[in-house]
C-alpha cells in the first residue's frame, strides 16, 4: 500500500494516452506519464436524446404489455376496423421525416457557408412543422371517426387502448413539434447548434418508427 509521490514532469507537453486505465491495481503508468485523456466527452445533447428514447420505449412497452395482458384476461375484447385516417396520417408522418432530413442537410450546408441556402435555410423545417401539425389534426379526425362508430374511451378495452396509445403518441409528437419550433427559433437567432438539430431530428424519426410500431400493434390486436 505504501507509495511515494514524485514531482510532476517538467515538460509542458504532457503525453496524454487516448484511453485512461484505472483501478486500484494500476496506479502508476508503465511509461511514467500521467494519465489524462484528450477526448473526454461528446457534445452535451448527444446522449440525452437516446436516453429519452429509451424512456419512451419503456413507457410504450408497458402500455403494450398491459394491452396483451388485458386482452387475454377476459372474453370481452372487441375487434374493430381501424379508422382509415390512420393510414393517411402514417404517410404524412413518414413524409415529415423525409422533409426534416432534407431540412437538416440544408441547414448544415447553410452553416457550412453554402450560398444556395442563404434565402431560407429553415424552409424545410417549416414544411416538417406543418406536416407534424397535419398529423396531430389527423389523429383527432381518426378519433372522431371512431366516435362515429359508437366506440368511445370506455366502450370496450380495445377502444380504450386505441385512444390511450394514439393520444400518448400524439402528445409525444407535440413535444417533437415544440423541439422543432425551438430549433427554428434558434436558427433565426443564429444560435442553433448542430447537435440540437440532430437530436430534434432523431427524436422526430423515432416518432415515425414508434408510430409504425403502434399501427402494427393496433392493426393486429384491435
Amino acid at each position, binding site marked *: *500500500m505504501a*507509495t*511515494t*509521490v514524485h514531482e510532476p514532469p517538467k515538460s509542458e507537453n504532457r503525453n496524454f494516452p487516448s484511453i485512461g486505465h*484505472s483501478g486500484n491495481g494500476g496506479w502508476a503508468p508503465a511509461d511514467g506519464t500521467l*494519465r*489524462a485523456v484528450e477526448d473526454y466527452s461528446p457534445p452535451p445533447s448527444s446522449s*440525452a436524446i437516446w436516453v429519452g428514447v429509451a424512456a419512451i420505449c419503456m413507457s410504450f412497452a408497458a402500455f403494450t404489455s*398491459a394491452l396483451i395482458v388485458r386482452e387475454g384476461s377476459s372474453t370481452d375484447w372487441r375487434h374493430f376496423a381501424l379508422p382509415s385516417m390512420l393510414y393517411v396520417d402514417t404517410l404524412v408522418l413518414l413524409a415529415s421525416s423525409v422533409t426534416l432530413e432534407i431540412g437538416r442537410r440544408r441547414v448544415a450546408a447553410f452553416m457550412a457557408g453554402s450560398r444556395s441556402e442563404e434565402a431560407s435555410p429553415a424552409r424545410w423545417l417549416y414544411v416538417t412543422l406543418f406536416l407534424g401539425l397535419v398529423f396531430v389534426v389527423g389523429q383527432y379526425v381518426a378519433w372522431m371517426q371512431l366516435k362515429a362508430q359508437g366506440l368511445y374511451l370506455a366502450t370496450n*378495452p380495445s377502444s380504450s387502448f386505441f385512444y390511450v396509445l394514439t393520444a400518448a403518441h400524439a402528445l409525444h409528437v407535440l413535444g417533437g413539434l415544440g423541439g422543432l419550433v425551438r430549433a427554428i427559433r434558434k436558427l433565426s437567432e443564429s444560435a442553433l447548434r448542430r447537435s440540437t438539430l440532430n437530436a430534434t431530428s432523431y427524436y422526430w424519426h423515432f416518432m415515425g418508427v414508434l408510430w409504425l410500431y403502434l399501427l402494427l400493434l393496433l392493426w393486429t390486436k384491435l
Partner: protein
Amino acid sequence: MHDMSAHAAPHHAPPEGFIKNHVFSLDHKVIGKQYYTLALVAVFIGMVLSWFMRIHLAWTNAAIPGLQLLSPAGAPNGLMTPEYYLELMTMHGTIMVFFVLTTAPFAGFGNYFLPIQVGAEDMPFPHFNMMSFWITLTAFCVLISAFFVGDGPPLAGWTAYAPLSAVGSIAGPGEGTGQVLWATAIGIFCIGQLLGSLNFISTVLDMRTKGMTLMRLPITAWAWFITSCIGLTAFAVLLPACILLILDHVAGTSFFIASGLVVNDKLLPHSGGSTLLWQHLFWFFGHPEVYIAIVPGMGIVTHVLITNMRRPMLSIKAILYSMWALAFLSYMVYGHHMFVSGMNPFSSLAFSFPTLLITIPSTVVVLIWIGSLYGSKLRINAASLFALGFISMFVSGGVSGFFLAQPSIDIMLHATYFVVGHFHMVMGVAALFGIFSGTYFWFPKMTGHMMNETWGKVHFWLTFIGTYAIFMPFHYLGMAGNVRRYSAFTDDYLVPLIPVHKFITIAALCTGAVQLIFIFNLIYSRFKGPKAPDNPWECTSLEWTMPSPPPWNNFGGKDPIVYHDAYQYGIEGSSGDYVMQDSHEQIQTVRDEK
C-alpha cells in the same frame, strides 16, 4: 497543485436576485438543496403520521389531541377510525418511499455533487433540472392536498392495489378524489424523476472533464448513474400504470376492474379488467424502487468509509459491478411481491430464483465493506458512524429477506409485521442512515460550516439503538402471526402482543424526538458552525478542490484536469496521505519501484 484548462463558455449566466438564486434557480447545487429540503419536510410529515399510527396501535381507545383538526371525520374527538388508520398508513408509505427515500439520496445529493464530481459546471439541461424539482414539488403538493379533500386521503396503501384503488368512492372513504389525487401525484412525480434521470445520465456520459474516464469516477457518481438508469426505466413504467388507473376512476374504463364486482351491495358496470395487471405494472417499478433508494446509500457509504479508512476498498470494481448486478436483477425479481396473488406456481419459482440470486451482489458489497474495514484505523466521526450503521441495518434487514424469498415461507409471513420489519430496515432505515452519513460528510462543502461532531455522534448512537428497538421486534411480531394493516388488536389472538406494540411505540416516539438533535445541529451549524476548510476530511474527489461552499460556476469558469483514480489514499503525497484527483503529482507504488 490543481490543474485547470480554459473553459469554452459558461453553461448559464450567473444568477441575479433572490428568485433566480434561491427559487427558480438553474444551479444544480441550489436544486440539490431544494430537493434535500423537500425530503426533510416530507420525512417530518411521514414520521408524524407514523407516530399517530403507532399510538393508535398501542393505545387503541386513547384520543390523540389535535388529530380531529386534521380530519374531523377520520378522527372524531381525536379517536382514529379504522379507515383513517389506513389512510395515514397509505400517506406515510407514499411520502416516505417517493418523497424521502427517492428524493434525498438520489435527487438531493446527486444534483449537488454529480456535476462537480465529474468536473462539470452544471448538468447539460439546467432548465429540465429546474423543472424536475418543481414538478416533484407539485406532485408533493397534490399528494398532501388529499388530506383536505372531502372523503380524505387514499387508503389503498402505497402500492395502491386494484380493484380497491380503482373503483372509486363507492368503496368508502378516500377511494374517490383522494385516490385520484394519489395517482395524479405519482404520475407527476414520475415525470419529474424521468427528467432528472435524463439529466443525470447525460451528465455522466457527456459532461466528464478531461481525464475523467468512466473508471475514474468516484463510486458515488457511479451510484447516482446506476440509480438514474433504474429510475429511467422504472418510472417510465409506473407513469402509464398511473394513467390507466386514473382512467379507470374518471373515465369508466376497465383496465384493472374485473367483471361482476359487487362493492357495498352495488354491481359495478366495469367488465373484464385484470387486478393482477396493476400488480405486475406496479411491482415492475416497485422492486427497482428499492434499489433507487438504496444504491445511492451504498455509494455514499463506500465513499465515506474509504475517506475515513485512509485506504482503498479491497475491490472498488467488485462493488461497482455488484451495484450494476443489483440494478439488472432488480427487474427480474419483482414477482416475489406477488407470491400469494394467484400467480402460476411455476412463476413463483421463476421469481424465487433471481430473488435468491440478488443476495449475491448484496453480500459481495457487504463482505468487501467488512473486509476492508478489518484492520483499518477508521476515523470515527458522525459520517463514518452512520456509514457503519448503514451496513448494520442493511445486513439485519437483508437477512430476513432470505426467508421471504422462499415462496413456501413467504406464504406464512406475507402481510405480517415480519415483512414490515424487513423492508423498513433494509430499505428505509438503511437508506436514511446513508442520507445522514452523506449529510454529515458533505454539509461543510454545501454550507461552508462544520457540523457539531459530538452531537452528531450522540445523534447516531441514539438513532441506532432506537431504530433497532423499533424494527427488530417487528420480526418477532410477524413470526407470532401479527398481520399488518390492522388498525387495532382488541379482541382476538393478537391481544397478548400489545405490550410489544407499546414498546415499539415508545421507541418510535423517542427515536423521532432524537431527530431534533439532528435538526438543531443542522440549523445551528448552518449559521453558527465553525467555518469549514476546503477539504476538512482530506478527501480526493473534485468537490473538495473548490471553496466551501462552491462558487456558482463550480470551477471558476475553468475545467479541471483529472490525472488519478478517485481513491488515492495510503500514499505519501505532498499534502498528506492522499493525492487529489486533479493533482498532477506523479504517483508510483513501492511495488513498481522494486
